[in-house]
């Protein structure tokens, strides 16, 4: 564990617990997340209901566990889409250069000019709320950020002489980019994508809190924040704050791990430690 801080270990544990909870929600969850019961409305956290119950008598812990599935699935989908498209755009534009690079960059500038939530909002409105629309909205907001990081990482590689050697062996552009540029530019991009996952989880929660994310039958974390804080924030704060704490711990942990990944890879390459990637702008 040499050189790994307490914070990173803690973040890893949090992520393992959350991922485990999401994966095995149906085994772990003590109650059905949708089962309502009038006689146990708004119970405070106790032995039977660790996180208490909400206004419909639903078990908040069970809802948080099932909510993790929705939140993480939406975040993963959006990062996969934004990562795939962003890396493809960033790498090809760094490699090709010239007019193509310029055009891609202008396009990315235009996307980047949109505040994160404004872009997400118009996409959700246009597609009408659903988990897929939420993921698409977040992906489109993340795309310009990923593309820029990927382009930057690839730019430092395309000047390398070994690429000339690769080209001399007759490798085509696609092979050169994906077999030789990508592995070298990959680590910083991967670290950035981990931090993006944190942003995506936060963005899903924000959109769902605003009522524009994942619609009712799904209990995502943001949805729980919305329901809990509107109806009985004062009488039963646990309905809002406990899922909120889990959300917060997950986002912070993802950012800490992403940060750590970014630094470790560079150290292994014997390069100068880069500036922290930090959290993508939200």
């Amino acid at each position: 564990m040499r050189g790994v801080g307490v914070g990173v270990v803690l973040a890893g544990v949090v992520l393992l617990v959350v991922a485990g909870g999401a994966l095995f929600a149906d085994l772990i969850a003590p109650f059905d997340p949708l089962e309502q019961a009038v006689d146990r409305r708004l119970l405070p956290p106790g032995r039977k209901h660790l996180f208490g119950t909400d206004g419909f008598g639903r078990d908040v812990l069970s809802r948080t566990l099932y909510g993790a599935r929705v939140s993480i699935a939406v975040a993963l989908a959006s990062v996969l889409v934004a990562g795939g498209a962003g890396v493809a755009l960033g790498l090809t534009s760094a490699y090709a250069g010239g007019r193509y690079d310029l055009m891609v960059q202008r396009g990315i500038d235009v996307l980047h000019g949109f505040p994160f939530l404004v872009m997400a909002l118009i996409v959700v409105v246009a597609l009408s709320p659903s988990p897929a629309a939420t993921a698409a909205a977040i992906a489109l907001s993340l795309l310009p950020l990923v593309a820029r990081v990927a382009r930057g990482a690839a730019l430092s590689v395309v000047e390398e002489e070994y690429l000339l050697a690769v080209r001399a062996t007759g490798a085509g552009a696609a092979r050169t980019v994906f077999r030789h540029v990508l592995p070298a530019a990959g680590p910083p991009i991967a670290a950035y994508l981990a931090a993006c996952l944190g942003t995506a989880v936060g963005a899903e929660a924000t959109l769902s809190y605003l009522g524009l994310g994942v619609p009712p039958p799904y209990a995502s974390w943001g949805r729980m924040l919305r329901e809990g804080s509107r109806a009985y924030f004062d009488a039963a704060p646990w309905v809002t704050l406990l899922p909120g704490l889990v959300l917060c711990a997950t986002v912070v942990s993802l950012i800490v791990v992403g940060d750590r990944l970014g630094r470790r890879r560079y150290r292994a390459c014997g390069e100068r430690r880069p500036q922290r990637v930090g959290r993508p702008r939200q």
Partner: protein
Amino acid sequence: MVRYMARRVIVAIPTLIAMSLLVFAIMRVLPGDVSLAILADTPHTVEMREALRRELGLEEPLPAQYARWAGSMLDGSFGGRSLETGEPISAILAEQLSVTLLLAVYAVVLSLAVALPLGVAAGLHRGRALDRAIEGASRAALSVPTVFAALLVMWLLLRLFGWSPPIIYEGPADDPATHIQMVFWPALLLAAAYGPHLVRVTRTRLIDVLDSDYAESARARGLTEAHVVLRHALPNALVAAITVAGVQLGALVSGAIVVETVFGLPGIGRGIVHAALARDYPVVQSIATILVALVLAGNLAVDLLYSFLDPRVRYDGRRM
């Protein structure tokens, strides 16, 4: 200088057009069409739908629709009326925009006032406990999702002081006490999300200058460390902080959407969320475009200020 400024402004225009085209295009991706989405929940006849389509101008070809909408953005009618209330969008903007602009100004001033001294302190004590504490605090402030922070603050205020925000918003001139009560916490939360970037860049730039050859030569000439910090390091750190403040304006808008909704501030951020929930397409489309244009204008203003403060960028075209 004038030529540089003119060039920057001219370059911004196609960007703005591209952005408005993108907003327009996304809003038209709707499966089916807008009229169906609007009438989805109400019983309606084919004639009603036809009438609505005509009213919204959906019969026209897309380029004509875009031209009409873009024209209305320029002549001040901003896309006509709200579908929900029939209120002109220009009136909605007039009512809500000032709230958000004020909030943004408070947040920027607050974060500059806190972040600059913190960044300088961290830079001067680099590697020591104070530096690490400031770094830790700014990373924490940066990582916590604003929604959760806002809800937590709201709950703490409610629990500790039995306080919840006033329901009716008052402008700063009408009722300063209510105004401050209403905007203080949202502005603070926005500043907490916005300030950490400024702390970091101030610290980094300060250290860069303190380590530079010209700072060393100033020391060699017998100038005091205080002189080096005040005359060389601080101005550079300031310029860097202003640039980052410009780059992060978009984050400020996103943050405003969240805190306005949580605290019930009747600004444009809450307005666009409300319109989105009501499927009030014209309002969402116009407000989104205005917000994007404001961010672009803010970036441009910061760019110009930057070129004024640092003459090098005007000549080598580095930032074009």
